[in-house]
Every structure is written in structure tokens, then in C-alpha cells.
């Protein structure tokens, strides 16, 4: 007798014909003149190859390197980020929140999966998962612990539930010992997870020796 089914709840049962149905829908929309396959390719290529967390890492690295830029970034995220040419869809109204020794910020969208596309690209599966969306607001420290991050009791955890049209980027703490690094080297340290608030930026990078 097979054991009760309800233990493999990670499994999401995607209908096997979904790929076929999407193909059929595309061909119908093309036939009706509603979409151009080349535009679809361009959209996919944008988020697979051009827009992603490397954008956000450059913003963070500059904020670390240039105090004046950091001040502009915290005062008006949208326009400071636009200095890099990063703007538009799902990043129209950007807010940057700064991690310090006293404050740790965490971003979530409990109602769907709002995420700052121009600086981080499309959200990862865990960010979109019911597990993260449900727990980040009620048990942020527990969630962070699962990510390997223990936040001290003397540190305030601020959770930003991005349910409106503001999109959030965490400015992580600059790790110690990085004074000699160039802006480009700094950017290489910055991870997507750190800019969502579920990780810190480490130096040397995990697995490397100083």
C-alpha cells in the first residue's frame, strides 16, 4: 500500500500538455495578428540575457564606492538607478532600503510576487513560492535562519510587503576588508539574495580564500 500522499507536497503537478497548449495559443495569436514571434523572442532574450541581478549589483557597488551616489539612491531610488539606464517595467517607482548594523531589511510580496525587474530581473521560484510569501511577514527571522542568516535580537528586522506599485531593493552592508576593491570587484560580490534581504554580502566570496 503506498504511503499517504501528502508528504511530497513540494511537487507541483504541471499538466503534461501545458507546453502544447502554450504552443497552440501562440500559433492562434500569431494567426490573428496579435503577436509577433520575433517580439516574443526579444522579450525572452531581454530577461534571460540582459536584465538581471548584475544590474542591481552595479547600483549597490556604486553606492558603496561613492557616498554622493548613495545619498541620491536613498533619497530617490528611481532616478539614481536610472543613471545606469535601468528603468521601466516593474521598476517604475523604486525605493532602496539600507541594511546597517541595527536594521536588516527583507522584501516580499504577500499578494502576488512583485519584484524590481530592472535591477534584479525576474523573481526566482522561492520568492514566488507560497512558503516564502506566507512566512516572510509573520516569521521573518525563521525564514532568514533557513537561508543561513541569524539576525541578532538587537537588530530590527523590517519587512517590506510590496503590495503597492513601489518596488524595493535592499542596499546590503558593505563587507569589511573591501576598501581596496574597485567598483567592478565590489559588484562581483553582490548577490541577488543579498539585494532581496535573505543573505549578506560576504568577502571573500564563499568558497574563496582571502
Amino acid at each position: 500500500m503506498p504511503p499517504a500522499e501528502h508528504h511530497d507536497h513540494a511537487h507541483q503537478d504541471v499538466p503534461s500538455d501545458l507546453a502544447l497548449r502554450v504552443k497552440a495559443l501562440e500559433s492562434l495569436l500569431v494567426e490573428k495578428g496579435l503577436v509577433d514571434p520575433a517580439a516574443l523572442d526579444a522579450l525572452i532574450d531581454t530577461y534571460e540575457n540582459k536584465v538581471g541581478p548584475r544590474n542591481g549589483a552595479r547600483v549597490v557597488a556604486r553606492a558603496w564606492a561613492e557616498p554622493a551616489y548613495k545619498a541620491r539612491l536613498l533619497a530617490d531610488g528611481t532616478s539614481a538607478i536610472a543613471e545606469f539606464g535601468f528603468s521601466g517595467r516593474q521598476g517604475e517607482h523604486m525605493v532602496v532600503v539600507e541594511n546597517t548594523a541595527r536594521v536588516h531589511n527583507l522584501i516580499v510580496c504577500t499578494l502576488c510576487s512583485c519584484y524590481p525587474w530592472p535591477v534584479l530581473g525576474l523573481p526566482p521560484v522561492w520568492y514566488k513560492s507560497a512558503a516564502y510569501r506566507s512566512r516572510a511577514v509573520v516569521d521573518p527571522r525563521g525564514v532568514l535562519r533557513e537561508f543561513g542568516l541569524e539576525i541578532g535580537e538587537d537588530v530590527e528586522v523590517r519587512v517590506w510587503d510590496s503590495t503597492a506599485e513601489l518596488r524595493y531593493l535592499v542596499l546590503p552592508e558593505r563587507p569589511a576588508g573591501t576598501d581596496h576593491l574597485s567598483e567592478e570587484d565590489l559588484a562581483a560580490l553582490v548577490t541577488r539574495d543579498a539585494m532581496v534581504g535573505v543573505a549578506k554580502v560576504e568577502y571573500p566570496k564563499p568558497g574563496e580564500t582571502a
Partner: protein
Amino acid sequence: MNGVHDMGGMHGMGPVKHEKDEPVFHAPWEGRTFALTLAAGAWGKWNIDAGRHEIELIPPAQYLRMSYYERWYVRLVELLAKRELVSREELETGHAKPGVPKASPRLTAGQVPALLSAGALASRRIAESPRFQPGQRVRARNIHPAGHTRLPRYARGKQGTIDRHRGGFVFPDTNAHFLGEKPQHVYSVRFAARELWGDQASPRDAVYIDMWDDYLEPA
């Protein structure tokens, strides 16, 4: 609506599973669904709030079973039909009804960069000054609309403090139903974690939620 999508504070959803070196799309159909949604959206037949609401209308058991892009697929089919870009009959047969002229002009590859970098501004100028000032105590209203709302259930009836004014924005509760933009002030409101979750929460922590004026009342 008090849907299963409004999941802040729920238990039982399991651990958060982090995937190392995750691809942007896990299968080609995911990318196509994503791109089809944006390209079809460029016809301007619906807005972002209507799009979010369409996903909320997926029945709860199916919503929870489905992957993210499966929800997007279902939403796209529904929006195409409801907003009459495609008929249910065409969706059924998979072919355009003969005699209907081709739509024009569709989004081209060359227009994609401009479309994405422009985005869609939800901000609106509002003549009246904001009703609330930073530092002011407010309460999120205890409302339970059957339609779309962006006031999460876990915050309703709870007291918070205005952190700052965000500007004027389109109101999702009407816009999602094509009942007008009804633009109004949005405020970042700080809710103490203990106000939201009781004594089990850290006395130091807080949740910040951007709230439209209609969601708030003086505390």
C-alpha cells in the same frame, strides 16, 4: 477579495526551497507564456490590476497546485477572452475565425526595448494635500471587498504609523474592474510586528506596507 492568494501569515506552506543557479525559465513554455502575456498586454485591453485580479480568480485548490507560469497561462487565456481579443470559440478550436481581419499594429521586436524601459507609470498628480502626516497613528480599515484589493488581510483593523508619503497612485480596487483610476495618496505605514502577530513576534521588528488613502482611517 479574501482569496488564498492573500497568504501573509499562513502556516503549513512548508519550508522555503532555494534553488542554486536557478535558470530564468525552467522550460521554454514558461518563457513563451511570459512573453505572450507582455506582448498581448501591449494592446492595452487590460491593466496591471485587472491582470493581478484575474490570477486571484483562479479557484484556491488550483491556485495552490499550479506553478507560477501556469497561473500566467490561465490568466492570459481568460483575459484574451474577456477583453475580446480572442473568442472562446477560437480558443477552443485553436484557429482564427475566418473572415475576421488581422489585428494591427502588433508589437514588433524592435519596439520591445522601448516598451520595457518605459514601463507603465502608476503615479498620478493629486491636487489635494495628503490627509495623513509622517508620525501620525492610523488604522488599516477592516474591509472585506469581494473584488480586487491590495490591502492584505493580516493588516486589517491593525494600527500603524505613517512612515512617509509616497505620492499619488492609481487605485487598484477600482482600476482592476475597469471602474476608473480613482487616484489617491499612498503612504508607507509601519506596523509593529507585535501589533500584527501578538506577543510571539519580536518587539523590535516591523512590517512596512504601502497603503492607499482609502485603506486608512485615523487611529
